[in-house]
Structures are given as structure tokens and as C-alpha cells.
């Protein structure tokens, strides 16, 4: 993908592509001039720093939907055939209590509805605004692709969507050494992935620093893969290979 440089910083530049995408791209010092045209590898980008906000929104959305569902279950639980039979067996004091609960539940539902709609919008935006890998299309069907991701700075998470899968990773340094934490999740609630994913970390010299492969059977939303990959150094490239089917 071609892009033209519009601003230069010490370690990166801001460039814009012909289709109107502004990207932050790592550069070597003194390499470029404003207005120079550069090539940006798809899926190769300097990570953003808004991950805390993103994760907070995701957590809030899950919490609102979770509590909302729990509230709905509580309310409608009384009105299932089984709940109705139990209610009929109750005495009048029980009916009064049921009425009070119903009114409270209606109030609660009225308050929760906009919150749930808002959460749904946020969740939708969350998926739409993440970095997308163009080589791996979303939706159902066969996928067979590979792409490279730049390892971010130590402790700086990177999130990217490939097909229907979310990849979240960051480099962690501890007394034991340097490791890459890789988390993979399915995003589409209606699709499951069957196939294999291979994650290979390459050093700047192109040597394999570490790798993991996953054989997956109907990997669906709500499930999570989490792996630590030991590294020799904190710089390098993460190569992801995906082969399988979303159905």
C-alpha cells in the first residue's frame, strides 16, 4: 500500500494513503522528506496507545450486557410456564411481592435499554475501529493467509483483527527474560474457526526467536487462546499464518 508522508517525528512518520487512511509508520531518522511516497506493508504498523481505553470500553460493554441479561432473566423467570405455575401456587402476599418485583423490573429495564443499545454501538465500533489485516477477509469461508506484525515497545499491547479473529499481544520483560504474550479470540458470535494458526517470532536478522502453533476445532466466541513465547530480544516481527475455515 502506497502512502505519502505528511509529518515526520523522531522514530515514526504520519502518512496518508490514497484511500484516505492516516497511518503511523516506523522510519529511520533522516530517511524521508515530507511529501515522499512510501510503501506500507499491510498489517505492519506502529501500535496505538489507546488500548487501555479500548479494553475499558470492552469490559464495560460486557458488564452492561451481562448485568442486563441477568436482570432480564430475573424478570422473565417469573413468567415462564414453570414460573407461572409456581406463582399460582403462591398466596396473595406472594402475588403482591411479584407485582412489586415486576414494577421494579420494568423500571430497571427502561433504564437498561438505552445503556444496552449504547453498549452494542460501542462494541460494534470497537470491532470496526481495530486495525484490520487485509489479507485475511472477515465473514464465513476458507482462509489461507499470512501476515507480519511489528513487535511493539516493551509493555505496549498491540491489537489487530484478522478475518474474524482478534490478536492481542505485547512484549513483556521480567527477570526470567523477554517473552511475548499472545492472546487470540474469535469476534463473530455466529462463526467458529476450525484449522490451524501458527505464530512465529523472527529477529531483525530473520532468525526464528520462538514459535507456537494451535490446532483449533470450532474455536468460537468466548474462548481464548493465551500463550507466552520466550524471545531472545524485544525487537522483531511476529509472523502469523492462518489456514482453516470460519463457519
Amino acid at each position, binding site marked *: 500500500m502506497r502512502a505519502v508522508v505528511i509529518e515526520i517525528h523522531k522514530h515514526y512518520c*504520519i502518512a496518508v494513503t490514497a*484511500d484516505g487512511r492516516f497511518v503511523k509508520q516506523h522510519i529511520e531518522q533522516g530517511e524521508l522528506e515530507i511529501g515522499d511516497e512510501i510503501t506500507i506493508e499491510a498489517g505492519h504498523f506502529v501500535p496505538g496507545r489507546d488500548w487501555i481505553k479500548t479494553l475499558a470500553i470492552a469490559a464495560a460493554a460486557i458488564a452492561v450486557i451481562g448485568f442486563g441479561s441477568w436482570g432480564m432473566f430475573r424478570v422473565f423467570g417469573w413468567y415462564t410456564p414453570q414460573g407461572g405455575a409456581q406463582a399460582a401456587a403462591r398466596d396473595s402476599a406472594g402475588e403482591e411481592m411479584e407485582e412489586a418485583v415486576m414494577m421494579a423490573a420494568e423500571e430497571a429495564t427502561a433504564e437498561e435499554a438505552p445503556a444496552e443499545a*449504547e453498549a452494542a454501538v460501542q462494541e460494534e465500533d470497537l470491532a470496526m*475501529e481495530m486495525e484490520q489485516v487485509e489479507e485475511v477477509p472477515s465473514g464465513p469461508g476458507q482462509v489461507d493467509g499470512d501476515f507480519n506484525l511489528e513487535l511493539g515497545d516493551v509493555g505496549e499491547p498491540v491489537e489487530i483483527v484478522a478475518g474474524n479473529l482478534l490478536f492481542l499481544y505485547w512484549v513483556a520483560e521480567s527477570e526470567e527474560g523477554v517473552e511475548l504474550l499472545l492472546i487470540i479470540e474469535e469476534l463473530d458470535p455466529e462463526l467458529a474457526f476450525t484449522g490451524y494458526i501458527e505464530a512465529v517470532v523472527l529477529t531483525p536478522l530473520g532468525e526464528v526467536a520462538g514459535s507456537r502453533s494451535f490446532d483449533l476445532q470450532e474455536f468460537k466466541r468466548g474462548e481464548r487462546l493465551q500463550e507466552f513465547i520466550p524471545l531472545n530480544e524485544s525487537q522483531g516481527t511476529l509472523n502469523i499464518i492462518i489456514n482453516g475455515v470460519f463457519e
Partner: protein
Amino acid sequence: MVIHRETLEERVIRSRDDNDLVNSLIKEFKPFIASVAQKRVGRYLEYGVDDELSVGLLAFREAIRSFKEGRARFLSFARMVISMRLIDYYRKLDNNFEVLGDEENQDLWDRQSVEVYQLENDEEDLKAEVIRYSDLLSRWGIDMVELARVSPRNGELRKTYQEIARKIAGHQALLNSFMETKRIPIKELQKDFPIHRKKLERGRIYIIAMILAITSGFSYMDIGRGGE
């Protein structure tokens, strides 16, 4: 009605005798001057820290004063003057720097002149457009790093925002209102675009950047032509 967009070369000639206009040009081209100097010295330079940038600013001023229309594109010429003044600067700093004789010095000028003058005109036009667009964004208070952060990665969302920008830029009343208030007319847009208000607000910076790209004639992006 034929609208004439003033070329950079015309601006330079017009600015030459007006100090305010020269200063305004220099301010607008500061990022360009820095990038040329950085490329020349091979490292990142910072205004107020690195002397090379002061040299670059003076050289750019000199380029404005000495530019001759018709001989070259201004950016090529300015780039050459900045490069040469940096060479002079390093020569003064380092006594061991190889000093060229007048004849050799002239050769170097000529060689570089030929080299830079042969740059494609299109390339220079693009650079001038980028600088103008970048300056415009900056005058609207748009931070490029923030713009890259909020720039939609999803193609569909990006197209929707671009369509909104085209709608505003192509509608005189909406455009006037936008230019005056610097706000996106959300209510009016919602009549034509079934899009959540929050999503419109979230795309505000990007939509403004797109409107400015269209109105300033930033040709690198396909946005003004409907994205196709």
C-alpha cells in the same frame, strides 16, 4: 467561472517584498525545511535544539529572495539552497572538512542543479500540496498523531465518513456553516445518513480532515472523486 489556484511559485514571487508574507511562508514550510535538513544530515533534528534547522530556515528565506520564476520549481530550488547552506555550515564547523575550490564549488552547484531540476514536476506538485494540506490541518488544530489514531481502519466506516465529508463540501450552505462554526452539522446529516450520533461525533476529526482535503484540492487522496 474559471477559478485560478495560485501556484507555490506565484506565491513566492508575490511574497518576496513583504516580510509578513515571507514569514508566513517560512512558518508554513517549517516541517518541510526540517525534513530536508534531516534527510541531508541523516538524523532527526529539533527546532530550538539543533543549529542545522536555523541554517535551514535562513537558507529557505534566501531561497524565497533569490528564486527566479521559470527556471525551476520552487521546492527543488529551496531544497538545493538548504543542502548547500548545510554543507557550508559543516565546512565552517570542521576545519578538516574538504574545502572545494571555487571551480569545484561551481561544479557541485551545477551538478546538483541539474539533478534537482530534473525532478518530476508531478512530484514537486504533490509535495507542495502535502505541505499546504498539512499546514491547513495544523491551523484547524488537528494533531496528525491524533488523526492517525482516530482514522478508521475499517474500510466501510472510512467510506461512510468520506461520503459525509463530500456531502458537506459539496453543499454550499452546509460548507459555509461548517467553516464558520467549525462544527459538523450533525442534525442535517442525520436526515441523509442513518448513522448513530455517537459515531458521527467520534469521526469528527477524520471528517474535518476529509473536508479540508476536498476543499484544498489535495489530489493524492481519491476522496474528492467519490473514492473511486
